[in-house]
C-alpha cells in the first residue's frame, strides 16, 4: 500500500479549504521531494504526517496551541489532517478490514485526525486550553476510530534534521539501535536460551546459537573469572555485608546481563563504522555517522509490515554530508530503497539532492502553498521532462530554491547580468534570484516548469532575457548573408519574429527582449559603447596573443573609439562599429563579458548613473526577477 494523498485544514500556516488556503499534497508513489524556503510550510507537512500516523521511534509529538491556524488575529478552533492510502494488497486490506473505505473500484484507507481547542476556566479563574483529538477512518472521518490495534501498523520512520547520530546509535536504555534490531525479523528467536554446543573433536568451539545464549554463557565466564570473582568477593564481604542491617544481607554481582530479555541485550550494543573490517575507533565526523544511521533505519523499513509502514520521512537528509555523498544517498534511495517498495518523503535545502530527483517528484512549497511539478500540474510538455532533468545539474537545480529566476541564452549573459544587477542596487544574491543559462533560447520553454496547468500561480517571477537578433541596417557592411532589418520589414517577418520570442510567456514567466539586436549591441547603444569597446579590445588581444593586452594596445583601442565617435554618426552606427569584432568572432563573447563586468565594477558607478546607461529591457528584467516594482525608466532609447 502507498500513501497517496495528504491534506490539512487550519493547521499551522495552512488555512481552511473554504479560503482555498489548505494543504493538498499529492504524494508520489516513490519519492516526494519538498523544496522551499524556511517557514514556507515544509515542516508543517512533515509534522502533519507525524501527527496522523505516528513514528516508529515513538517520539511523541504533542499538539500545542500554535498548531492551530491563525489569521487576522483569530485562532482556529479546530484543525484536521487527512491522509489516504491506496493500492492495498489483499493481505494489507485484510489487516485493516474494519477501517477500510469501500470506494467503487477498490478499498482505500483514509485517516482523519481532528483536533479541537477548547478553552476552559479552571478553578482559580485562569483561562486554560485543552486539546481534544481523535483519529478516525472512513469517508469524512465517520468510520471506526484508530485504536491501539492498528496504530503499530501505521507508524512511519522519521529522521529529524540535524540528527545526532552519535546519540542515536549509542548503547543505552531505549537506544534507537535496540528498537531497530528488536523489530527485525532475524531477531525473532534470539530471545530463546541456548547452550554451548558440545565440542567436536578437531573443530573450534561453536558459540551458542542464540544471542541470549551467547550473553548468558559470557556472563558465566565473566562471573567465574578470577579478577571479577576477587572483586566481587571483596565488595561483598568487606563492604556490603557490613553495611547491611539485620538479617537481610546485601550482596552484589558484576555481570553484563542484568535484566532478562532480548531488549536489554540489544541495548548494550553500539553501531560504529569500520574500515575494511578492521576496527576503526577514530572518531568519525557527523556526516558518515549520519549515513550509518540512515542505513540502519533503512534496514528495518522494507521488512515485514508488522512494525509499521514502509514510509520514510526525512528532513534534510543532506545534513552533514559532503555533496558527493549527498548525490550518492539520493541515488541509493531511488534505486535501492524505492525499488524495493519503500516510499520516501524528503524535505531538502540542497540543490544536489534536487538535481538528482526526478522532476515530477519535486514539489515547491511557498508560503503555505504546495506546487507539485509532476506532469499534469505544470505547463511543461511531458517530453521535455526527461531533457530538463538531464539538464538540471546541481548548479542549475538551485532554480527550485530561488525567489526569482533569470533565464539567459548564453555564457556571456550569465556572467554579465548578475554584475549589472548588483551595480544598479538589485543584487541577485540579496534578492534570492538564480540565473540559469539554458544555452539556446529554444530552451526557454523550460520556463514552463514554472507555469501551472491549473490553480493558483507559482509566485516566482521568471525573466527570460533574449536577443531580438534583428541586425540593424547600420551594420550592413559586415553582415554578409544575414538579412538586415529593412529587408525583414519588407518581407513582413518582423512581427512574426517578435511574437515568436514571447511564445513561452504566461503567468509569471516573462520574456524581455533586447530592443534591437544583441545584448552587447544594445548595451553599446544605450550608453556603454566605450566600455564595451575597451572590453572587446582586451578580449581580442587575449584571443590573438593569449596574454593580456599591453598598455599600448589599450591606448590605441581607445583612440580608435574616440576617432569613431568624433565622426558624429548616429548612436546606432557607433554601436555597430563597436559590435563588429564580436560579430566577426574576433573576440570571445565570454571574455568580453568578463572584462566588461570587471571594468564596470572598478569604476564603481552609482546605481542611478549606471541605470541611465543600461537598456530599459535589462533593468526591467532585473527588477522583475527581484520582485522590485519598476522605478524611473533608465533611458529612452534613441532610435
Amino acid at each position, binding site marked *: 500500500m502507498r500513501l497517496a494523498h495528504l491534506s490539512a485544514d487550519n493547521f499551522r500556516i495552512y488555512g481552511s479549504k473554504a479560503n482555498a488556503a489548505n494543504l493538498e499534497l499529492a504524494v508520489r508513489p516513490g519519492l516526494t521531494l519538498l523544496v522551499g524556503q524556511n517557514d514556507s510550510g515544509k515542516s508543517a507537512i512533515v509534522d502533519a504526517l507525524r501527527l496522523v500516523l505516528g513514528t516508529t521511534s515513538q517520539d511523541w509529538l504533542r499538539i500545542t496551541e500554535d498548531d492551530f491556524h491563525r489569521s487576522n488575529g483569530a485562532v482556529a478552533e479546530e484543525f484536521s489532517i487527512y491522509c489516504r492510502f491506496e493500492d492495498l494488497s489483499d493481505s*494489507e486490506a485484510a489487516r485493516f478490514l*474494519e477501517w477500510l473505505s469501500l470506494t467503487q473500484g477498490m*478499498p482505500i484507507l483514509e485517516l482523519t485526525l481532528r483536533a479541537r481547542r477548547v478553552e476552559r476556566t479552571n478553578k482559580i479563574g485562569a483561562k486554560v486550553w485543552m486539546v481534544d483529538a481523535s483519529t478516525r477512518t472512513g469517508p469524512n472521518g465517520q468510520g471506526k476510530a484508530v485504536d491501539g*490495534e492498528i496504530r503499530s501498523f501505521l507508524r512511519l520512520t522519521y529522521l529529524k534534521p540535524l540528527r545526532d547520530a552519535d546519540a542515536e546509535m549509542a548503547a543505552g536504555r531505549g537506544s534507537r539501535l535496540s528498537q531497530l534490531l528488536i523489530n527485525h525479523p532475524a531477531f525473532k528467536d534470539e530471545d530463546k536460551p541456548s547452550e554451548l554446543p558440545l565440542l567436536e573433536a578437531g573443530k573450534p568451539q561453536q558459540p551458542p546459537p542464540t544471542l541470549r545464549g551467547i550473553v548468558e554463557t559470557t556472563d558465566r565466564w565473566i562471573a567465574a573469572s578470577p579478577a571479577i570473582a576477587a572483586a566481587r568477593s571483596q565488595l561483598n564481604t568487606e563492604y556490603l555485608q557490613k553495611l547491611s542491617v539485620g538479617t537481610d544481607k546485601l550482596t552484589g554481582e558484576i555481570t553484563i546481563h542484568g535484566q532478562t530479555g532480548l531488549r536489554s541485550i540489544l541495548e548494550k550494543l553500539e553501531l560504529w563504522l569500520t574500515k575494511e573490517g578492521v576496527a576503526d575507533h577514530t572518531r568519525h565526523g557527523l556526516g558518515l555517522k549520519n549515513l550509518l544511521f540512515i542505513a540502519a533505519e533503512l534496514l528495518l523499513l522494507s521488512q515485514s*509490515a508488522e512494525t509499521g509502514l514502509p514510509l520514510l520521512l526525512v528532513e534534510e537528509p543532506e545534513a552533514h554530508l559532503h555533496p558527493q555523498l549527498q548525490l550518492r544517498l539520493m541515488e541509493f534511495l531511488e534505486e535501492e530503497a524505492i525499488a524495493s517498495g519503500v516510499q520516501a518523503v524528503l524535505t531538502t535545502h540542497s540543490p544536489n539532492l534536487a538535481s538528482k530527483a526526478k522532476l515530477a517528484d519535486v514539489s515547491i512549497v511557498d508560503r503555505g502553498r504546495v506546487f507539485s511539478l509532476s506532469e499534469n500540474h505544470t505547463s511543461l510538455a511531458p517530453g521535455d521532462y526527461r531533457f530538463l532533468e538531464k539538464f538540471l545539474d546541481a548548479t542549475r537545480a538551485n532554480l527550485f530554491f530561488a525567489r526569482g529566476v533569470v533565464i539567459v541564452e548564453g555564457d556571456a549573459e550569465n556572467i554579465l547580468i548578475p554584475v549589472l544587477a548588483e551595480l544598479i542596487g538589485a543584487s541577485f544574491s540579496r534578492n534570492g534570484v538564480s540565473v540559469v543559462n539554458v544555452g539556446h533560447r529554444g530552451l526557454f520553454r523550460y520556463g514552463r516548469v514554472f507555469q501551472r496547468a491549473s490553480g493558483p500561480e507559482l509566485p516566482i517571477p521568471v525573466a527570460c532575457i533574449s536577443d531580438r537578433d534583428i541586425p540593424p541596417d547600420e551594420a550592413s557592411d559586415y553582415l554578409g548573408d544575414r538579412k538586415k532589418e529593412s529587408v525583414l520589414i519588407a518581407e513582413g517577418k518582423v512581427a512574426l519574429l517578435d511574437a515568436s520570442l514571447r511564445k513561452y510567456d504566461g503567468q509569471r514567466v516573462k520574456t524581455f527582449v533586447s530592443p534591437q539586436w544583441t545584448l552587447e549591441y544594445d548595451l553599446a547603444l544605450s550608453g556603454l559603447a566605450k566600455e564595451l569597446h575597451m572590453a572587446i579590445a582586451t578580449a581580442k588581444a587575449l584571443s590573438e596573443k593569449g596574454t593580456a593586452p599591453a598598455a599600448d594596445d589599450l591606448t590605441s583601442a581607445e583612440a580608435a573609439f574616440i576617432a569613431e565617435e568624433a565622426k558624429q554618426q548616429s548612436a546606432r552606427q557607433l554601436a555597430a562599429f563597436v559590435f563588429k569584432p564580436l560579430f566577426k568572432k574576433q573576440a570571445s563573447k565570454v571574455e568580453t563579458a568578463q572584462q566588461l563586468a570587471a571594468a564596470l565594477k572598478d569604476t564603481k558607478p552609482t546605481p542611478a548613473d549606471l541605470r541611465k546607461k543600461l537598456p530599459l529591457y535589462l533593468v526591467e528584467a532585473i527588477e522583475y526577477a527581484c520582485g522590485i516594482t519598476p522605478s524611473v525608466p533608465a533611458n529612452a532609447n534613441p532610435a
Partner: protein
Amino acid sequence: MPTQLKFSDDEITSLATELAIDLSSAEKIAVLKSSTSCDIQAGPGCGKTTILTAKLALLAKKWRWSNRGVLVLSHTNVARREIETRLGQSQSLAQLLGYPHFIGTFQTFVDQFLALPYLRQEGVEITAIDNDKFVARALASFSKPEFSKAQFALKNRNEGLETIIGGLRFDGPQLVVTNPAASNRLFPGPESATGQLLKRLKERLARDGYFRFDDMYGYAEACLAHRKYVISIIRHRFPWVFVDELQDTNESQDRILETLFSADGCVMQKFGDKNQAIFNFDAGSIPAPELFGRRPSLPLSETHRFGDDIARFASPLSIVEPQTLKATVARDKRRHTIFVFDRGSIHRVVTSFADLVLSEVPESSRLKNRVCVVGGRKNLKEPKEKNFPEAIGDYWKGFQSDLSRKARMPDTLYGFVLEARALVSKDNSFAEPTMRITGGVLEAVRRATPDKQKPLIKTRTELKDFLIAGDSYPEFKKLMWDFLRSDPNISENTWNAKIESLLLLLKTIMPEANAPRVREFLAWTGHSESEANGSAVIEAEAENILLHRGVTAEISLWFDSIHGVKGETHAATLVLETFARTHDLKSLLPILTGNQKATNLTSTAFEHCKRLFVGVTRPTDLLCLAIFSEHVTDKDIELLENAGWHIERLA
C-alpha cells in the same frame, strides 16, 4: 497457511487436561482434527460449545498471524457471551477475543464489516438502527395523507399494521422492499399501487436514517454485490470461520456465508443441530433454508444432558439428519409419563405434572435447572372449539401469551430511571445504569425533534460532546447521580424540578420540548414508594410462572413456547399438545409408538416433529407429554407403554 494447521493426538490430550474436559471419544477427536469445511451435527446437550471452545483453543495456541484471524459467528448475544466467558478464562485463549479475530453475532459482523462501511461510503446518514424506533417512525409516517390509499387497502388485514408497516425491510442485494405479510398470496404485490406506496414509505424512512436490524443484511448483500473486492479481502482476513447454532441461519445469512466463505482458501465449520431447525409461528420470522447435504457432516451424538431413556424417546424424532443419541451420564430411571386428558380434566394436567416432579425429581436437580411446561403454540387470535386443545392457554388460564422475554423500551423517562435503579442494585456499578438513563434522554430528544428533521443529537457520544462544549457536562452528571441515588424514591415535585433542569441543559437540541408527546414522556409516573421499587424488577423480566404447592414442597413452573426454550436445559419438561393446522402430538404418534420411522411425513408433521424434538430434549431428569384422549387409541397406549412410557389417564 492457517488452513493447513494440523492438530496431533498429544496436543488434544494435553488440552483436555488443561481445560479439565473429556476429549477422548472418536467423534470429538474427529471434529477437533478436521480442517476442511464441514457441518458438525451436534445433538442436544452434546457439548457443542465445549468442543467449539476446545477447537478455538487449539487454534489459539498455534496462531501466529497478525493480519488474519478466526471468525466465530453466533445468532444471539447469549450464545456469544457463553463463548466469550469460556475463552476469557485463560490467558492464551483470551487473545481470540480481540483483533485480528472476531467473535460476535451475525448482526454485528454484517454491520461492522459490510453494511455500515457501505452505507458510509454511499453517504447515508444513520439516525437509528433499531426495530422499535423504526416501527414508531414508520407508523407515524404511514399515517400521513399521501399514504391514504395504502392505509385503506391494509386496514383490515390479519397481520396488523404494526407487523406490516413496522416490518418493512430491504431484502437481498437489490434491496427489494418486503414485509412479513408479503409471503401471503393475498397481499398486494410490489407492482400494485399499495406496493408502490410501501416502497416509497420504506425509501423515505431510509432517507431519514431509520432502519431495522435486518435491513443491514440487505445492505450487506448489496455491498458484496457492488464491491466484489471485499470478498477476497474478508477471505484473507478470516481463513477459519465457525458458525454456531447453524439451524437458526436464515436465507440472507446463508447467502452471505456462501458468498464469502465457500472457497478453497477458507475453512468454514458450522456447529448446530439441524433437527432443531424450528421457526416461530407467532413472530413470523423467516424460515431456515434447506440445510442438507452441501458439505460433509461430522456427528456429536454423546449427550450429557439426559439419560438413555430420554435419549431413546428423542432419537426417532431427529428427522432432518437422523442421529442416535447416546447418554454419557448415567441417570436414574424415572417415570416418564404421558398424561392423557379429556375436556374436563385438561386443567389437571399441569398440577399432576408438578406433583410427579416433586416425587420423581430430586431437589438437587431442581435447584440447578428450572421445571418447564412448553407447547408449540402460545396464542391464537381466534380460538376454535373444534381444534381443542389449541394452545398453552387452554391448559392454564393464567398464561399471558403476549409477554415478550425481551425487555421492551419503557414509555417514559421515569421508566428508564426505574430500570436503571434496578440495575444499580443488581450490578453495584453505575456504568450500565447511567447508560440506561442517557438512552432515555436520547429518546426524549428524538421525540422533541420535528418529524421532518433528524435529531440533532443521536448517540451518547454526541450528547457528551454537546454537553462538554456547553460546559454543562458536570451538571448533567450530577443529575444522573441524583436519579440513581440509593435514597428512596423520587417524589413528583423533585422529579419535575429535575426535569426542568434537564430541559434547560438540553433546550438547544430539543426544539419541540413542549410538544405533548414529549411532556408525556417526561411526566412523573411513579407510584407510592414500595410499589416503585418492586415493580421495576418485574417489568424488566416478564415471565409466565406458576407456583404449585404440593403436599410436601412448593415448585415453580415456567411456561413458554417450545421456540422460547431453545437451547435451554431443564430439570423436567412437560410438552403439551397444541394445534397448528393439525395437532402436533397426534400427528407424530406413529413415531412415538415406534410404528413408523420418520419418513413420509407431511410438511406440517415435519415441522411438528422438529419442534417436538426440541421440546423432548430439554430435561435432564424427567420428560412428560400431554395428549388429548380422543387422539390416542388403546392400541396406541399399549405401544407407548412398551416403548417405555408410563401412562396416566386424567378423568
